[in-house]
């Protein structure tokens, strides 16, 4: 019987780390292959982790809320089963950037003789950068490489702005335009005391995720246009106001394809699908599942889909596919009698719509004063994608759709 590591599994193509949510087994518990031992949350949803082998849960090394990189142990299982990978991946050939997996914290079966490169020096750079000095291993889009060669720019000196630290064409050209590449500004006189080790592992609750998103949003040049929508003649067919307004909003987005878009970092990318995320207040925090093409179904169908989606969000039953592909997010605080509020964009979405309370309001009408059912909405736009008049036109279209179906 040997202890074999149960690692933080990679559960989607983009997952790089996971947060432990809850253990379903305790040390000493018998485990069958395929049993659910714990749940982890990826960058998007909670997923169940199945044991790959039968045995006994020997010890747990990751506690709830711990953030663990993919491939690092979260527990050890005492098992007679063969570890198919035991000792096979420690060799020098390695797998480059993805690696570092089994060298965790002296997992059972590690050959001590081979462990020298693992913890050489606690440099504060991430493992990805450390070996990236050679031109070939710097991540860059192909045309950026070509441009770098043409302009005589050394890729390793270029500051990347693309996803996952990829160098984009603009980075190379920006560098070439500068007087001298010089040496990178040394990241402050290297602290004598090594930075706290293992920066990747820490406590990260749901607030941290929202903090990341909204801090990124705060960098976006965005503004909000407000408008009172008159709902007296809106067809409801028994649907909730959220459904009615989402339906009209999705129709309007389809009519203004320039706003049904995301900002990719250097340009607008229009989306074929009208993806409307709904901000849902759940016991575990804010989550925004996506309705796809809600304008293409009838209002009663949308109302049902919306209820079902919100229900699944509150029960923690969303899949990864439920969270992708939105160009906008709708938030509704009307049920708390909030009149209006300013919704921040969720990057890279181009718009966000806030819904205030729906109710009777005293308004000036043709021959005096009347009472109308109204709702104050706020449309937030990424100014890189659209201008104030674009937002105003979209809201005017929403009003027309609500009046005339």
């Amino acid at each position: 019987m040997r202890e074999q590591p149960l690692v933080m599994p990679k559960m989607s193509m983009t997952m790089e780390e996971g947060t432990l949510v809850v253990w379903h087994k305790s040390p000493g518990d018998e485990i069958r292959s395929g049993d659910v031992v714990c749940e982890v949350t990826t960058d998007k949803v909670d997923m169940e982790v199945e044991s790959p082998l039968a045995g006994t849960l020997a010890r747990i090394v990751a506690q709830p809320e711990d953030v663990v990189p993919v491939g690092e142990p979260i527990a050890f299982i005492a098992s007679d089963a063969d570890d198919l990978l035991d000792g096979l991946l420690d060799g020098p050939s390695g797998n480059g950037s993805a690696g570092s997996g089994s060298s965790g914290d002296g997992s059972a079966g590690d050959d001590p003789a081979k462990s020298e490169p693992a913890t050489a020096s606690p440099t504060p750079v991430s493992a990805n950068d450390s070996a990236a000095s050679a031109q070939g291993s710097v991540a860059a889009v192909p045309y950026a490489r070509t441009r770098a060669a043409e302009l005589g720019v050394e890729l390793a000196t270029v500051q990347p702005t693309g996803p996952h630290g990829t160098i984009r064409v603009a980075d190379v050209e920006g560098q070439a335009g500068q007087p001298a590449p010089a040496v990178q500004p040394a990241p402050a006189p290297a602290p004598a005391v090594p930075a706290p080790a293992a920066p990747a592992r820490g406590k990260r609750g749901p607030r941290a995720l929202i903090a990341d998103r909204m801090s990124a949003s705060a960098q976006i040049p965005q503004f909000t246009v407000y408008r009172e929508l008159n709902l007296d003649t809106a067809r409801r067919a028994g649907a909730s106001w959220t459904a009615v307004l989402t339906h009209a909003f999705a129709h309007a987005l389809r009519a203004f394809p320039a706003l049904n878009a995301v900002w990719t970092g250097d340009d607008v990318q229009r989306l074929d699908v009208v993806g409307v995320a709904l901000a849902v207040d759940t016991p575990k925090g804010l989550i925004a599942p996506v309705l796809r093409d809600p304008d293409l179904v009838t209002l009663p169908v949308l109302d049902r889909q919306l209820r079902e989606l919100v229900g699944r969000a509150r029960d923690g039953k969303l899949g990864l596919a439920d969270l992708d592909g939105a160009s906008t997010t709708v938030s509704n605080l009307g049920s708390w009698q909030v009149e209006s509020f300013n919704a921040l964009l969720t990057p890279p979405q181009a718009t966000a719509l806030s819904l205030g309370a729906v109710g009777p309001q005293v308004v000036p009408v043709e021959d005096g004063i009347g009472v109308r059912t109204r709702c104050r909405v706020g449309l937030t736009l990424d100014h890189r994608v659209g201008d104030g008049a674009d937002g105003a036109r979209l809201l005017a279209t929403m009003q027309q759709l609500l009046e005339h179906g």
Partner: protein
Amino acid sequence: MDLVKDAETATSALTTMWTIRRFEEAVDDLFARGLMHGTMHLSIGQEAVPTGACLALREGDYITSTHRGHGHCIAKGAQLDRMMAELLAKETGYCRGRGGSMHIADVATGNLGANGIVAGGVPIAAGAGLAVKMRGQSHAVLSFFGDGAVNEGAWHEGVNLAAIWDLPVVFVCENNKYGMSMSVNRASKVDNLADRAAAYGIPGVTVDGNDPQEVHDAVDEAVERARAGNGPSLIEAVTYRWKGHSKSDKNLYRSREEIDSWREQDPITRFETAVLHQQTLTESELAACRDAARDAVRAAIRTANAAPDASADELLSAVYSGGKQ
């Protein structure tokens, strides 16, 4: 061919099933550890279908595979190290590390390729069958696909062409109950997918896909029919995939209890029990099959891992014929 009573055949079938199982467990583990990129689809629980089916084939016969194709490859005789190298994006892989799990092809063993398109292999199989017929050969073509494929237009067209031209094709539907998350009962009105055969005027039969003998008997009969020039057949092998559709599946469309009940019907355990009961193999001979499969998979990982990484430097050679590097 009696898989259970003939010692040599039983050893071969069991080793193949264990090899598929171990290969996919290793792949699952490699992905979980972040050492394998892209995505892949595992057929753990379905090993009896390719194993039983491919035992009815001989040299020169062809197969077409699916996105869930590791088992088909292995059962048709692919080299494990080249498969593993492909999955690890190594230069020594079947597609020089450029295709990954869903594009492994090995023309040398008659494997015309995995296919990322649902039902994509079906017209290819009809085409291979047409080639065999036009050359006057007696080879058979075995086309694997899932239950999701039978509602694709390409499936209808491929099966219909094979039927009207009496092509030597055997269509094997691995009905694992779900097309991604869509239950087969919601996607089709007929009780058995094999009933679809009637629409094309060909024989259709439903078998227990967790019993390699049943699969083998049905495929063997269909292959003989194909070789004799009597046209295609449809075989539905009812089985179950234990793992999710792909790597980001939360299993929201089925219950733990359902998965567990199918794990109880593990085709490998069932086959081992049957072989022991018939006293064809001893306990230690069963263990030898398991060990052989494990050692083969480990050797494949070792070889593949030591191979050079696929290089992006001359990707264009796979795009342009004889063009610039």
